């Protein structure tokens, strides 16, 4: 199996657009593939495919429950908590857990010397596993609204990718912080999607530098080519970063996609371009010993 992550620093450049179109052509060619939607805050991949839901796994973390009958208000749990999730006022004998701030590290449970802390599960989101055309899994990481961090949900979704499929396509969350790192860290190759604008370039630079420090091989697709200027292309040439494809800006493509349709369904040459990219990546990076 080769894992290819589709990422970008800036939101809205076309990550999901590229990921869904690639997955669609692969399944059309009967290449055994899996698509993982790792954008757990805003998962949209499933809306592009008619698929059948097979499994749902709840993602939880544990949060402390304090037994006030046993608590001596010594404050050690508060001291151990790095996330300020335990509020304590010893003189008034007030102690409470702010569940939204808790990361579920268990330090308070270890800290308590009076057996006053137990833990209960706290739901963070779901991992939904669906089947497209009967045999190609789509794995969706979906964080619940109001939750602070998508990282645990993403990690659990990534575990469901398995090793059976030939190609795994990972639709990454935007940005370059933890959720992005968790996703691309699993990948053998990363496709960065950008647009030829100053915002696109600024965010591309940051993503490219991050991937370099992670030693992850990557290439770039310029989406909406034709708008903006040549600065992105110049930057890629200067840095020796491979330009995999330019997708011209077209109102027709934007219109199709806005209705949840994929351009590869009707545009054969676009499908071939994407397949060529995947073939080249697989030839170049498919036999790596990436066991992450």
């Amino acid at each position: 199996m080769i894992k290819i992550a589709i990422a970008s620093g800036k939101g809205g450049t076309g990550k999901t657009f590229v990921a869904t179109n690639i997955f669609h052509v692969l399944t059309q060619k009967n290449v055994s593939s899996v698509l993982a939607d790792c954008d757990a805050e805003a998962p949209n991949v499933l809306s592009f495919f008619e698929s059948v839901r097979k499994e749902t796994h709840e993602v939880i973390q544990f949060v402390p429950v304090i037994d006030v009958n046993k608590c001596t208000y010594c404050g050690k749990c508060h001291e151990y908590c790095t996330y300020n999730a335990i509020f304590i006022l010893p003189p008034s004998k007030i102690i409470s857990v702010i569940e939204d701030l808790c990361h579920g590290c268990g330090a308070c449970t270890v800290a308590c010397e009076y057996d006053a802390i137990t833990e209960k599960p706290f739901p963070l989101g779901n991992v939904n596993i669906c089947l497209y055309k009967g045999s190609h899994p789509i794995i969706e990481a979906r964080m619940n609204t109001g939750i602070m961090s998508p990282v645990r949900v993403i990690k659990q979704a990534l575990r469901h990718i398995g090793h059976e499929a030939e190609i795994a396509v990972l639709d990454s969350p935007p940005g370059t912080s933890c959720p992005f790192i968790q996703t691309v860290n699993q990948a053998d190759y990363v496709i960065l999607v950008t647009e030829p604008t100053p915002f696109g370039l600024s965010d591309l630079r940051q993503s490219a530098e991050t991937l370099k420090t992670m030693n992850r091989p990557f290439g770039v697709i310029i989406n909406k080519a034709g708008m903006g200027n040549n600065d992105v292309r110049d930057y890629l040439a200067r840095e020796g970063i491979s330009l995999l494809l330019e997708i011209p800006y077209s109102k027709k493509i934007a219109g199709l996609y806005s209705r949840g349709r994929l351009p590869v369904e009707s545009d054969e040459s676009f499908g071939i371009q994407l397949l060529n990219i995947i073939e080249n990546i697989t030839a170049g990076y498919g036999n790596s010993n990436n066991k992450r």
Partner: protein
Amino acid sequence: MEIAIISGKGGTGKSSISASFATIGDRVVVADCDVDAANLYLIFNPLKEEEAVYVSGHDAVINYDLCTNCGLCETYCRFDAISTGDDGIVIISEISCDGCFLCSRICPEKAIDMIPNDKSRMYSGSFRNGKMVYGKLAPGEENSGKLVNMVREKAKETARENNIDTIILDGPPGIGCPAISTITGTDRVVIVTEPTLSALLDLRRTAEVVRKFSLPACTIINKHDLNTEMSRQIEEWCEQNGIGVIGKLPFDSRITEAMIESKSITEYNPQLDISNKLKEIWKKILDQSK
């Protein structure tokens, strides 16, 4: 008065719209809360006046002179960050470490140090229509919500010191920690969306979060003419869900031309239809937020 501009889906035009609002009228404080991919400085070229270090958290690092590879830390870690290799050596993955300190506390040899992540920064300075505060989160770091809070505190302080009434918060995409930190306690939330199915799905989740925090909110449909039918559906949905559409903006490729010249579209060409609409919307937002 704090006005937050957000959107669940990225790339709907938050920053371009924020940039216009910030250059239409009276002096403002602009806070770029998209600390993960800060971009507004490209349009405003702020004159940097202050810089502050932001410690996003800590990473656990093993001191191998003291470590006996007992593996106790591995059994305590709930982030799967600690593992024992085939060679029996215990290692901590920087990527998975959450910085909770537990391993360093329970280690019998005191062989784990907690190293602060201090590569992130917060900057503040002046731009042509007021003051600007922005954060830059170093790659791979967590807790961006805390940096957003720091940016907002600084923005409030700057507004007070300079007698500026309005603070514009340009938010991040998504609905997690940094987005929540951007909107909590603001006077008004403006959600920027576009007429696509993906944007509508994300808008629903954003609206749920806004409702959870009981914040007054409205919606702008950007590029509404790219799919008028979807735009109508979104408008209907917004009306039914108490986040009424305050204005619709046409698609205009000159937004990109303006960006290349480091200008907002209203500065680039104030006569355009889109510029007039932006001015109308901003006036409505200010009137309604009073």
